[in-house]
């Protein structure tokens, strides 16, 4: 007799996905891991998890490729098959929460690419009802920016920002994918006011950058794994559209709380310009 499957619906970025398993312990892990993102919405997608004694080597390169109608997601610690036509997939992995996060991130990156959105290696936070993104390579200061944020700032993530097109621009959503801060973001959303590429320096300053430079930096920080030309073309078009719609600047910062004054000053001056335009 087949064991009954238990379901947890996890909604990230407004996209509810039903995650099912027969393993009570794994279900408990799912619910704890994504507490704050559990949803009662009707799921748009379904993933069946099968807990197996797969290797735990999450340092292997991830591979995402097409096999006829399905996507194959592979790494040392998981193997998954995903059919975008039926909106269903199966995952074989060990009970490691990092493997779980990786599978969900890849799946969301595929879903978002079809919807002109993307996951960005960036911290994001809401200040005065607008979202600000802080992107850069590891060590550039993403977690530092979130640690320095004033108390009225709402953290969306210190690691992986979730971006979707919205009326007039793009919206950022909170994610449970945490970096060094080891704290999930708030499950909320706001229109994106600006993206800053971080660089540490002796003083705080905001500089313009060319559109081409902005696209180049953006593409280097977008999480995308699929070996698929149509999706890559669409992603590149999305990146160009994002750069055309969202102010993008280089933020050189000295790591203390005054950097948020710089962000606030930029936001105020930009709003003033926009209102006069």
């Amino acid at each position: 007799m087949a064991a009954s499957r238990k379901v947890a619906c996890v909604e990230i970025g407004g996209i509810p996905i039903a995650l099912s398993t027969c393993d009570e312990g794994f279900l408990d892990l799912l619910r704890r891991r994504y507490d704050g993102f559990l949803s009662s919405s009707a799921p748009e997608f379904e993933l069946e998890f099968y807990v197996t004694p797969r290797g735990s080597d999450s340092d292997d390169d991830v591979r995402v490729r097409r096999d006829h109608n399905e996507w194959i997601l592979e790494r040392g610690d998981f193997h998954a098959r995903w059919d975008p036509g039926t909106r269903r997939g199966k995952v074989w992995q060990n009970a490691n929460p990092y493997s779980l996060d990786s599978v969900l991130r890849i799946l969301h990156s595929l879903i978002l690419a079809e919807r002109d959105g993307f996951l960005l290696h960036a911290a994001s936070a809401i200040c005065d009802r607008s979202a600000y993104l802080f992107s850069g390579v590891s060590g550039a200061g993403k977690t530092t920016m979130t640690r320095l944020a004033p108390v009225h700032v709402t953290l969306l993530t210190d690691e992986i920002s979730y971006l979707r097109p919205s009326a007039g621009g793009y919206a950022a959503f909170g994610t449970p994918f945490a970096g060094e801060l080891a704290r999930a973001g708030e499950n909320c959303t706001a229109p994106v006011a600006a993206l800053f590429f971080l660089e540490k320096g002796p003083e705080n300053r905001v500089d313009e950058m060319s559109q081409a430079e902005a696209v180049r930096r953006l593409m280097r920080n977008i999480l995308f794994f699929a070996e698929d030309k149509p999706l890559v073309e669409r992603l590149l078009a999305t990146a160009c559209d994002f750069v055309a719609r969202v102010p993008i600047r280089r933020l050189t910062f000295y790591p203390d709380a005054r950097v948020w004054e710089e962000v606030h000053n930029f936001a105020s001056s930009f709003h003033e310009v926009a209102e006069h335009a």
Partner: protein
Amino acid sequence: MPENCIYIARSSAIAARALAGEMMVMNSADSTFFTLNEVATTIFQAADGHTPLREIVRDRVCEQFDVDPEQAQADAEQFVAELSSHGILLVSNQPLAAETF
């Protein structure tokens, strides 16, 4: 292969988009990303698989940019070698089929 018989074609596995005078190129096989300057973009766009590189340099690059022909040829060969090592351009001493953009 003789230098004057190098044919170049764009790989079918890449996505490209022009923006503000530069060409953004991404290899869908490994997600490597390149931005090409104006001269490189001219060569990239002319990489139709049946026009020899030397002809592209002479008729396109030297016509559009104030460059020394010998230096332009050397730079073009270096550029082609680099992009072909990343799978962006295909290189042959025979004409090739090419992607159109």
